[in-house]
């Protein structure tokens, strides 16, 4: 489990973003510096962003906001990323939301476990913000945002 270098967390704050029509990305990461860095960049390039610091928060945010895509760190406190993904994929409301697994574990077993849990893509850290953005765009293009959620 990563140490929290800073005590703050914005995971519970409402989604930020210029327009509500832009895709909503749920960033799940317990390491605040990384989460905020990605949030800063994605917001900068025009996405709406919601944040969560563990699996339970991720589930709550996902059910509340129905994001267009979820970036899920796998090593998380309280509930890990695999379990959270499994629950999302089991739930009718969140099943269609694509999940991008993001982990600093480079060993073979991790990506395999992530796919089995239901992750749609797998990205390894270090991952530059623009690389993650490219991955998100690719995911959105293959998983069109349902009109119902957009309204």
């Amino acid at each position, binding site marked *: 489990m990563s140490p929290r270098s800073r005590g703050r967390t914005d995971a519970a704050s409402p989604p930020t973003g210029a327009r509500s029509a832009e895709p909503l990305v749920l960033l799940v990461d317990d390491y605040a510096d990384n989460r905020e860095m990605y949030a800063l960049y994605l917001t900068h390039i025009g996405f709406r962003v919601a944040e969560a610091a563990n699996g339970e928060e991720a589930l709550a945010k996902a059910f509340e906001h129905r994001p267009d895509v979820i970036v899920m760190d796998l090593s998380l406190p309280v509930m890990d990323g695999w379990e959270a993904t499994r629950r999302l994929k089991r739930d009718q409301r969140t099943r269609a939301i694509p999940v991008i697994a993001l982990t*600093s*574990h480079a060993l*073979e077993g991790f990506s395999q476990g992530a796919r089995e849990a239901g992750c749609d893509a797998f990205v390894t850290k270090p991952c530059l913000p623009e690389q993650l953005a490219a991955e998100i765009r690719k995911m959105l293009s293959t998983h069109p945002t349902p009109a119902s959620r957009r309204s």
Partner: protein
Amino acid sequence: MSRPVALRLPIGAAGGSVTEARLALAEFLIGCDSLAECAQWSLDWLAEHAGLRRGLFFVVDRDRSRLTAAASYGGVPGSLSRLSVDLGQTEHALVAALQRRTPTEVSPATLGGRLRRSPLSGQAPFLAWPLRAPAGQESPGLLLVNPVTPEVSREAGWLAEILGPKIARQLTLQALDATRRRLESELALVQAMINTVPDPILLTDVEGRLVMANARAEALFVATEQDSEGRRRAIALNNMLFSAALTGRVFQGAEALRRELLLVDPSDGSDLIFELISTVTHGPGGDLVIVAVLRNVMDLRNAVEEIEENYRRLGAVEADVRAERDRLDLVIDSVADPILVTDPNGAIVLMNVPAERLFTVPPDAPGEVQVRVQANDAHFSSFLANVLTFTGDRSSRHVGRIGLVEPVSGRPLPVEAVAGKVLSQQGALIGIVTILHDQTEALERERLYAELKQASELLEERVRQATAELVRQNELLRRQALQLEQASALKSQFLANMSHEFRTPLNAILGYTSMLLQGVAGELPPAARRHLGRVDSSARHLLALINDILDISRIEAGKMPVHVAKFPVADLVTELLAEVEPLVARTSLTLHRQVAPDLPPMESDRAKVKQIVLNLLTNAVKFTPQGSVTIRVTYDDETDRIRLAVSDTGIGISPEDQQRIFDDFTQADASPTRAYGGAGLGLSISRRLAAMLGGEITLESAPGRGSTFTLSLPRVLAR
């Protein structure tokens, strides 16, 4: 003896007529053959016609030695033969009465005890009438009558008169008859005797006519009408041959003559050879007769031959026995071990030369030798005594140890004595055979064996200890290996975890740096941009290091997956050159590409092949100040391998560094202030990856002459 009824009736009927009675008795007596019957009848007649109450009739026996009663009357019946008197007793009343020609009165009281019994008992006298003797002869008997009346006396006198010659004649007849019977029995005896002789015996007259023959001779010389024609002819021939043999020789002397006689066996016609022994003697009538005895020479000859044969055989057997004995002596003497044969009393019967050396004193031997021989004798006798007293299994061997001494040298001679009893067929003990085995060597061997055994046990114990130590060490090693394995696994796990932990903050560093350089936070001053560029490259270097360490730990933990796919090598080379191009662009180097045409596609882990060759290319660029870097790809269809060679015109590597540079964290220049960047893990990882793909990296280089690293891989990696 039965009384003739015909005689008594006329007497009884006649009554008084004495003349008629005398006539009837005389008539009877003429027909009577038996002396005893005549006597009894006479007494009965006297009782009937003269009033005799008691009477005895004595008769003289054949050889006139005794006077014995032949009949009695009026007494208790008994054995008449007991009433007998020896005629030699001339004083006896009866003997005296017999000698007289006139009757004598005899009182029973004057007779001997044996005669004084019924009817000669009581006091009344008897009248003894001697029977009339024939001319020139003695009286043949005596008639005793009682009572002595004139009538009895008269009739008794008459009877004595007429019975005398009659009795005398009967006595003579009796004697003749006895002689004839004796002669007949003697003749039969002689006949039987000569018949039992197996040799034919013949008695002939001087003309050779057969007078008498024994059964054996009869078979040869006497034919009967029942005999066959052939047999009769054979017998006739035999008679002719026999007569011819006798003729002309008979009178040559009284002594026996011997000559050979050939006869024919009448029963089967075979030849019989006899020795004829003839003797001339006088026959009963005084004439000359010949006694001939034939001895079967054929049997004799056979017997002689048999004896000779037996003698010859005996001689051969004796020779055999002697030879056997000689051989036995030779054998016994040739045995190196002493052998002794003793009789049941323990006395030595036989011994061989080695035994003699122990148990006999050589001539002129010094006193101590004699003492030693005596000691040996005593030991041996004691052993024999044990053997003899042992009565268990009679056929078993007896083994014992005897401490003997060599008489001459005095050297101790321990021996093992093996004794066997020799028994006769009846099981009686004949002797004892003892063999002595020299035990000196055996004892020495035993001692050496014991030493060897001890040494062997010591060695075994040491081996056992060493083995135990080995087992202990092995166990220790096994545990250490296990610990090492665990430690290695822990290390790999630790490294994997560390790389994860390093990446998380590095991710933020790289991310923020990238964003700042992109102007997310607004335009930066040029100096800040430059500094941020350094932060970025340092962070990337750190990331490269972390990735290298992760690779090594993955390989060592066996967690590096291999993904085999088919790909064209030329395309890979193009890709590699494109990646190196930015590096080369900063230098004055030129890049050369030499790929063999018609390369077959490769089947291996493309990413790993790329990683290896990229490492070789970057190294080449890094360590080549000027000149060129060349990549050359060739295919060897014999070994089905592809070779990717990267050559440079760089600084080169000294021979002593050529092996070392493949080790972890090593560069040829190991100094802390080295001129070239890099963690030094590249070649180490490359070598490990090449091994994973079934290949190897080789190096040709010399300082100042550049280097050529060649990756050789199987074109197709077996999965």
